[in-house]
Structures are given as structure tokens and as C-alpha cells.
């Protein structure tokens, strides 16, 4: 039986998770989880609050250390200290904060240039327009609304090179138009051959983006 999100052709998956377990004391929040995400495919983690969706994502991106199990990106065991992993893995999670003294556009410019994006200026301008933050481009992040900060976090994932997008409830604090844009954007990402792994409570977003869903009890 193929794992959720695995490539139909049987080609090696972009992301491969095997036997992932995360215990907090006696409580196993995640137990023996397997999942695959193929290039050009989307996998959505769904489940009630506390089911372990964010814990799975945190273990995958290296923000948390799994009790056991393996996580591989493109055949390489994920070590978030690795330059290659950082280059291929674009993440937008809730723990992201910003420099208090850099404006919106300066954040995106910094990330694009740190990743060595060619023609960073044009890429940043395009993403800024897409997320609707052009009027706020000179604003400092603490003065943004929560929805605008969420857009900035998503934009920071789109201005840089990536092969796999990992998003934790990306629909949070977005308005209806923002959610529609996000669904469209993630479909475009898949069409460009990127893998998308997201945890979400938004059924419409899941239906629009995910080729497979994995329900965590």
C-alpha cells in the first residue's frame, strides 16, 4: 500500500517520513507515522486541535527532535543545520518572528539576497504585490495587523528558492480573499513541481491544494 502523498509513478518521494514518533513524557503525541510527499503533489494533515499536526511539522523541519523515526528530503536525512536542507525547505510556521527594525520590503529583500536569488528586486516586488503588502512595504512588522504578518510570513517563503513548502495552518488570520489567493498560489507551486505539506483546518483549502490527506487521530 502506498503512503499518503506518495508519487503515483513510484518515483522516489521528495519527502519521506518513516516511523516518526514524538513522546512528551509518557504521552505519545505522534506514534509510528509514515508519510511521503512527491514533487508536484500536496499532502494535507488534518485533525482536531492537539492531534499532533504541528508536532509532525516541527519534527519534519527540525524545530523539534523526534523520539524516533527518520525524515528524508530528496533522499537526504533532514538536518536543519545543513545548508542544502535550508535551501530546499521553505517553512511558514507560527514561531516565525521578524526583525523589529527592518521594514516589510527589507525583510523580503534580505531573505531573497541571503538565498542568492538572481534579480531579487523583481522577485520581491512581484511577491509583495501578490500578497497585497505594497502599501505596507515601509512599515515595521510590529505595526502590521495579524493578517498582514501572516501574509509577510507566507511571502518570506515565496521569495526564496524551494523544493518543499511546509505550512502550518497557513489560512490562519487570512480573510476570504487571502484564502482564495493562497489556494491558487499553492496550486501554482505544485504545478511548478514543488511539494506542499500543510496542516490545516480549512476544508476548502485542503480540497483545493491536497492530492492526499492524512488524518491524525
Amino acid at each position, binding site marked *: 500500500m502506498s503512503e499518503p502523498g506518495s508519487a503515483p509513478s513510484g518515483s522516489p518521494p521528495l519527502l519521506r517520513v518513516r516511523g516518526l514518533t514524538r513522546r512528551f513524557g509518557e504521552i505519545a503525541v505522534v506514534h509510528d507515522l509514515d508519510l511521503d510527499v512527491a514533487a508536484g503533489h500536496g499532502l494535507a494533515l488534518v485533525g482536531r486541535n492537539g492531534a499532533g499536526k504541528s508536532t509532525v511539522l516541527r519534527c519534519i*523541519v*527540525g*524545530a523539534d527532535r523526534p523520539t524516533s523515526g527518520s525524515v528524508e528530503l530528496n533522499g537526504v536525512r533532514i538536518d*536543519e*543545520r*545543513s*545548508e542544502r536542507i*535550508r*535551501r530546499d525547505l*521553505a*517553512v511558514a*510556521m*507560527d*514561531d*516565525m*518572528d*521578524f*526583525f*523589529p*527594525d*527592518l*521594514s516589510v*520590503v*527589507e525583510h523580503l*529583500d*534580505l*531573505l531573497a*539576497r*541571503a*538565498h*542568492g536569488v538572481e*534579480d*531579487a*528586486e523583481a522577485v*520581491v516586488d512581484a511577491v509583495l504585490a501578490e500578497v497585497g503588502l505594497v502599501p505596507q*512595504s*515601509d*512599515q*515595521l512588522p*510590529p*505595526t502590521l495587523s495579524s493578517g498582514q504578518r501572516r501574509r509577510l510570513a507566507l511571502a*518570506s*517563503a515565496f521569495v*526564496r528558492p524551494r523544493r518543499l513548502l511546509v505550512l502550518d495552518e497557513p489560512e490562519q488570520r487570512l480573510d476570504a480573499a487571502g484564502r482564495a489567493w493562497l489556494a491558487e498560489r499553492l496550486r501554482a507551486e505544485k504545478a511548478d513541481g514543488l511539494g506542499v505539506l500543510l496542516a490545516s483546518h480549512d476544508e476548502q483549502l485542503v480540497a483545493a491544494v491536497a492530492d492526499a490527506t492524512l488524518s491524525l487521530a
Partner: protein
Amino acid sequence: MSRESAREIRELRATIRHWRRGRVDTRFVDAFNDAYVAVFATLMLGAMAVNVVINLRAVGRGGCTSGLCVQARTTLPWLLVIGVAAACLGVARLFGPMLVTPAVGTWLLPAPVDRAALLRPRLVATCGAALLAGALLALASSALASFAVGAVVAFSVVVAAGCALLVAVAVVDQARGLGVTGALTWLVAAVSWAGLVALSAGRAPDLQAATAYGPGWPAAAGVAGVLMMGAAALAARSLPLLSADRLKPGGSLVPSLSGALATVDLALIYDIMVARRWLARSTVRSVRARRRGPTGGAALVWRDLIRVRRAPQRLVVLAASLVVPYLGAAAGLGRVLVLAASVTGFVAGLGLCSAVRVVSRNPGLARCLPMPTWQTRGSCLVVPGALLLAWGLGTAPAFHATLPALPGGDWPLAVDLGIATGFAALVAITRWLTAAPPDYQKPLLSSPTGAVPTSLFGALGRGLDVLLLLTAPILLSPTPTGAVVSIGIGVIVLGVLLNRERS
């Protein structure tokens, strides 16, 4: 204020008091015991402090007889009070000075009550606190400087009134939006700095005559008192003009700082202050790299250069702090100057290192960058490191001035010591900013104040531990070898700090 509105305020306060008393959890006997201990401790410690001042005064009179020493002793109280005035203004700007607690901001400010009546007790308390702080410091410093008793009293009155006056002016500024408090703070700080420069150069004015009691003193005290009363009256009249948006920020800052202090997380206080500063600014003129701009770690370095240009005050503070090592040299600190200078560089350089703090505190942000942790942090330290090394080189003449007291030294040794000092400050700052906050998930220690994490009290000495470690080789052996050993240990410590994954 109408009698009716005053009655409303009293009734509201009485209601709040009634609520609070309904939740009393301390018996009267316990409160009495606590009060007894507090009063006894205050009296005992106060008596000890007075005794220390009297003894030091006697020692100072007997031991400090040279012209330079007497000049420094009589000048320092003046510089100290100017510094206190700058501190009063700085604290006043930070908190408002008028503020309301979040509860008052939520419940009473929107209510149709007389705002002046609501804020008047806080104005009295704020000016009173400034008055008390100024008086205590002036009393101690003038007594130590062997002022005559009458001069001590008059000097204390002048300083206390001056501090309260400055706070009252800040209140008027806060209410009327004149924008003078900031300029006044910089002006007072500049005067204080100029005094320190003059003192370190041995060109301080002769203020010995002011230590005697003369007819000028009561006149000065009277004028200061009248000016303070006038400013306080003007501040009281300005209270109705204070809008909620000017009162609430200070009130929300207090619980944040209290929380950070309760956990002895001093770096969190740093975060709060940095965030508050930039929140007040809200927008900036964005600066973007040209078409072929810096990439990789150089992009972080370039952003730090933009930061320095954007907020040059931090650079001014660092440059101004150079006076301290020269003052230490003039005071004949000898090899201890290394420790004094590195502590100064540590404190003055903290403001330049906000980027390394942000990437260390926010793993989510660091994860977005393609570089490994050590490179990210290292890139954020390039500009502050260069500035601190330049600062260290700037201290070389001060070390050169102390070299006659050191064995076999000359300019190369002075330069070595300067570099080692700047580097020690950089490593200590990195230690301070990248350290983990107290971990309440680990086993806790039992203490009279409740369970505390093992790392809680160690947090107080963080940074200073590295300074002691790195300056120890020079303190033991003020030679080029000592400087090289110090730098070598610093490189190892910095390597560990940059590579530490969990901040």
C-alpha cells in the same frame, strides 16, 4: 475640577478598593510582621549606609590631599547629579512619564470622569520619586565630597528639586506634544559627557569653593524650589490634555518589564526595549540593495550597516563611552583598567547587536536563512565586531597612559590591550544575547521566594563571567602574551557561542 467629578473618582476608587478587600489573602498580624521587618531593615540598612558615608568622608578628607584628587572629588558630585538628571529624563521618556495601568486604561480612561483628578495622585508620586532619588544621591555624593553640612543640605535640595522639575517638564511635554524632553535628555547627557572629558583631561573647573556653605546656597535652593513648584503646577494643569494613547504605552510596559525582572531575564528586557523603540517609529524609509547586491551572509552584514545608519545614536553612545577608559587612566586604575574598559564596551556595545539577538531568539526566522547557525550569528556580528574593535583601538592611548605603571610596555602593548578589550566586550555581548532564558521545565530549586530554575540567578552574572574570564590573563600578566592568551580564549568561547544550537 468640579466637586461632583472628584466625588465620582472617590466613589470609583472606593469600589475598586472594596473589590480588592474582598479578595484579601493576608491576615493583619502577617501584614504587621512584614511591616515591622521592612521598617527594621530600612532603619538598619539606612544607619549602615550613613555610617559608611561618614567613614568614607573621613577617609577621603585624610587620604585625598593632592590637587588632582581634590579636584576630582569635588567635581564628581556635580557630574553625578547631571547624570542623574539625564537618567530621570530618560526614565520619564521611557514610561511617559505619566502612565496608567492596563486596568485603569481599560475601565477608567473611557469612563466620563475628570482625567486630571484621576492622574493627579500619579503625578505627585512620579515627581516625588524623582525628588527622593535626586535627594538621596545628592546627599550621599556631596557628603562623600566633604561638602560643609549646610552645603550638603542645600545641594540636596537643589538637586532634588531639579529632578522633580525635569519630570514635571516631561509631563508638560507629554501632554502638549512639544517634543523638548528628547532634546533636553541629549543636552543633559552631553553636558555630563563634556564634564567627564574635562575631568579625564585634567581640565575640570575648580569647584572647591562650592563645597563651603555660603549665601549663594540658600538662594539657589529657594530658586530651585520655586521653579519646581511652578513646573509642577503647570504639569498639573496639563493633565486633562493627556490622551489615552500617550498614557497606555507606559502602563503596558510596566508589566512586561516586571515579568522579565521576575524571571531575571535581562535579555528579555533588552528585547522589550528594542521592540518598543521601533514600534514607536512604525515606519522607515526602506533601503534596498542595488541590482547586484550582497548575497549570502554578506546580505546580513549589509543590513547591519543600514541599521547603524538608521539609528546612529547607538554609534554615538559607543563613541561617547570612550571617555570612561580615559577617566579610569586619569584615576590611575593601572591594569584594572582592562576590566573597567571591557565592561564599558560591553554595556555601550549592546545596542549595536540587536540582529544577533533576533536570530538567536527566533529559530523560525533563522530557519528561513540558508546559512548554518554559526554563520548567521557570525554575519550579524561582523559590523558590531568591527566597531567594537575600532573602539578597543580607541582605548589604546588610555592604556598607553597607564603603561608606566605596567612592566615593559609601550605602544604595541597598548594596542594589544585595546584590541583584547574590544574583543572581550564583543564575546561578552554574544554570551549575553545568545543565552537561553531560564528553563522552568528543568528541576527547580526551593527558595524562600518559591521554586526557581537553577539558571535563574546565574543569569545576573551572564556576560560578566566572560569578561572576567577574558580579562583574567591580562590582569595576571599585562603583557603582549597576556593579550594574546585573552584573545585566544575569546576565539574559543565565541566559537562555542556561535555554534550553540538552542538559544
